[in-house]
């Protein structure tokens, strides 16, 4: 079920209403059933795969807690391998087979392995990582193993964040399913506002920009360098608003039920360094990789700085591969890792930090990130390199859609999101509106509602991150 579908507009209020009408002891069961229904809207029988991973990690968690030493480690490895195996079969098997066949063909070996004709279960990478974080935290002794199978299942399946995160940690989520959650108007108000902002990001900005981006990128050979530059900039905002919009709706929906989810985005395009960008972008995934991959390899406290750089590169390459089984994603991850390594190695001096205006720093970060988005958006490495080459020689005519209004809406939506982000960071978050806080919030909600109504794209566009 998509958040931007009519079914969700019915599903969400009904589930929330029943949630608050039920006595506390039945609520987790209600949420679990609702989450199953939500997931089964996509491909119903894929819930079996989810069930298998839940079952493995549930028992693994208990066994890890009850054992010591080598046995404990063995259970952890068993859990990690079996959970990742499911991900491998569905997401990466065909990638490796394709590459194997390609290499075999290259060396003239007349042997090929058949690829599997399977569809990737929606959100598999997300709930795999959420399951992994549970067993690792139990292993590290930071989380007690959950003995209630239903509540553990709900931790993996909780519908607002089931298919595209935020990827939660057990310490933050599990206990919330057990605590009393009376209805609070403030939770409702803040949650509803967040959901509305999420819908604005998705329907007004992301889905509008996707019209231009898809047209240009699917026929990149027919478009000029300048059109590809514009499409890439638009894609930078599209992917941000698509994913941050999803996260905002997820966090808002959960907030209404009194269950807090972690912040996933903090206005990343206002970052003045690549490091800062990654502290603001897809926070739940970045911290996951930091906690379970980068730090496990020694983190940034290693004495050998080259080892730190190597660890950074490895973390980002894995992060790229997590996004998709395609070399374009690996390069995207590698490129971002490379940016970070260079940034660390050069250590910006006083001139840069003091005298360069923040706006220019933000622009520099934005340009570098846009370059990496070309790999993320392209279907193949060949296409990405072709686009980069064309962008290197800008010129030609800018592609304008047959309906000039589309371009006006694209520019307007980017202006609005930029204005809101700067306003939030500079004014709202600094509590400069204390006197008008309530009035401003009411007015902003009404404004957002009508912007979505008048400028939203209601064609049920998929969320980009669902494919991961």
């Amino acid at each position: 079920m998509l958040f931007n579908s009519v079914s969700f507009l019915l599903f969400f209020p009904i589930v929330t209403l029943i949630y608050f009408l039920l006595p506390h002891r039945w609520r987790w069961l209600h949420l679990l059933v609702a989450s199953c229904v939500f997931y089964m809207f996509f491909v119903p029988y894929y819930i079996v795969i989810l069930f298998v991973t839940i079952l493995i990690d549930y028992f693994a968690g208990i066994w890890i807690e009850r054992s010591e030493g080598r046995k404990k480690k063995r259970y952890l490895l068993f859990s990690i391998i079996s959970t990742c195996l499911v991900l491998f079969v569905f997401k990466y098997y065909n990638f490796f087979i394709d590459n194997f066949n390609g290499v075999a063909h290259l060396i003239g070996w007349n042997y090929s392995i058949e690829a599997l004709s399977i569809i990737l279960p929606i959100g598999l990478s997300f709930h795999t990582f959420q399951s992994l974080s549970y067993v690792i935290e139990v292993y590290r002794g930071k989380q007690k193993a959950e003995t209630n199978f239903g509540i553990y299942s709900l931790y993996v399946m909780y519908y607002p964040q089931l298919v595209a995160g935020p990827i939660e940690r057990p310490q933050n989520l599990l206990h919330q399913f057990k605590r009393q959650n009376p209805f609070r108007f403030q939770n409702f108000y803040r949650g509803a506002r967040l959901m509305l902002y999420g819908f604005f990001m998705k329907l007004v900005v992301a889905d509008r920009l996707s019209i231009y981006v898809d047209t240009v990128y699917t026929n990149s050979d027919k478009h000029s360098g300048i059109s590809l530059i514009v499409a890439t900039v638009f894609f930078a905002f599209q992917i941000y608003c698509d994913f941050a919009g999803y996260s905002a709706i997820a966090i808002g929906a959960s907030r209404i039920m009194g269950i807090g989810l972690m912040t996933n985005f903090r206005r990343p395009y206002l970052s003045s360094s690549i490091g800062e960008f990654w502290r603001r972008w897809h926070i739940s995934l970045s911290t996951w990789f930091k906690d379970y991959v980068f730090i496990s390899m020694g983190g940034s406290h290693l004495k050998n700085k080259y080892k730190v750089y190597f660890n950074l590169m490895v973390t980002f390459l894995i992060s790229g591969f997590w996004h998709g089984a395609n070399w374009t994603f690996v390069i995207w991850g590698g490129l971002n890792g490379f940016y970070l390594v260079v940034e660390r190695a050069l250590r910006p001096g006083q001139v840069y930090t003091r005298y360069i205006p923040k706006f220019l720093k933000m622009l520099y970060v934005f340009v570098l990130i846009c370059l990496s988005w070309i790999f993320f958006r392209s279907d193949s490495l060949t296409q990405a390199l072709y686009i980069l080459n064309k962008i290197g020689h800008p010129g030609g005519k800018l592609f304008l859609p047959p309906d000039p209004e589309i371009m006006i809406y694209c520019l307007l939506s980017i202006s609005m999101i930029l204005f809101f982000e700067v306003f939030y960071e500079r004014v709202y978050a600094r509590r400069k509106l204390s006197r008008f806080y309530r009035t401003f919030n009411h007015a902003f909600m009404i404004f957002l509602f009508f912007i979505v109504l008048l400028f939203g794209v209601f064609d049920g566009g998929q969320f980009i991150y669902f494919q991961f």
Partner: protein
Amino acid sequence: MNKEIQKLLFFFAKAILIVIVLDFALGKGLEIFYNRMSVGEKARANYFIRKDLSDVIVFGSSRALYHYHAGVLADSLQTTVYNAGRSNQTILYHLALLKTILKRHTPKMVILDVNEEELVKSQKKYELLSALLPYCHYDEDIRALYRKANPGYGFWSWSRSLPYNSSVFATLYRGITRGKDNDIHGFLNHDGVFKDSLKTTDNCAANYPLDPMLEQSFSEFVALCKARNITLFVSVSPRFVQYKCRRPEYEALQNLAKQDGVAIHDYEDLYDDGSYFSDPSHLNSKGALAFSKSIAPILKASLHPQQ
């Protein structure tokens, strides 16, 4: 009652009231500008739906809009002709328009331009029907047809401003500025000359699923014309593509037309001269003039069989 619930109910009451009032005011304001438009496809649709009384009406997509020269046809048929073709629209849109104008007057003849993919299922065909939204509040038939194609409409049909979604600027701009459309009774000249050579298509294997709703709408369109004694002329206008074979979708359309008792006049291969076309699917002004002149006597014979 719980204080928190009280706050929620109070919030909902306030929010609903504000939304309804603002939505109505915005919708009404945009409607005024929408009805004042004098240039563009929306203005032409507005005129046709609300005022036109022509005896001969052309329905179809952009291929109808650019191919049937209303001036040439009017001179030849010695009657009034209006070209109500609209880019990307399908039989669903044409049926809605026919139903609406029949409430006002009965034309003598209807020309329906179809293409071979007319009955092929596509979600986009339903989405493009949003062009009818500004009329949904006033016309029962349009509303019923739109709701049939987009069942979700029931949830937000209350909104007065949603019909103007994604057309706010065009509505305001065209509603404020005055101008004169360069159409000839709805017909528009398409400029340009297609430079490439004639392409041969052999996509015989393509077999797209048909849409029962489109089939039903086509049959309803034919039945409505018959019931009102309107001469219906269904045609496929020229294209600059040579087909090695006929695709199954086109066969299905022909069978359906046969079943409904109407002939499809196929002019798809009429011209193999690129200078008549602006692109493979559209005639340019020279082509439209030639095509309209060549079908005018046939239309005349259909309209006045006794002469």
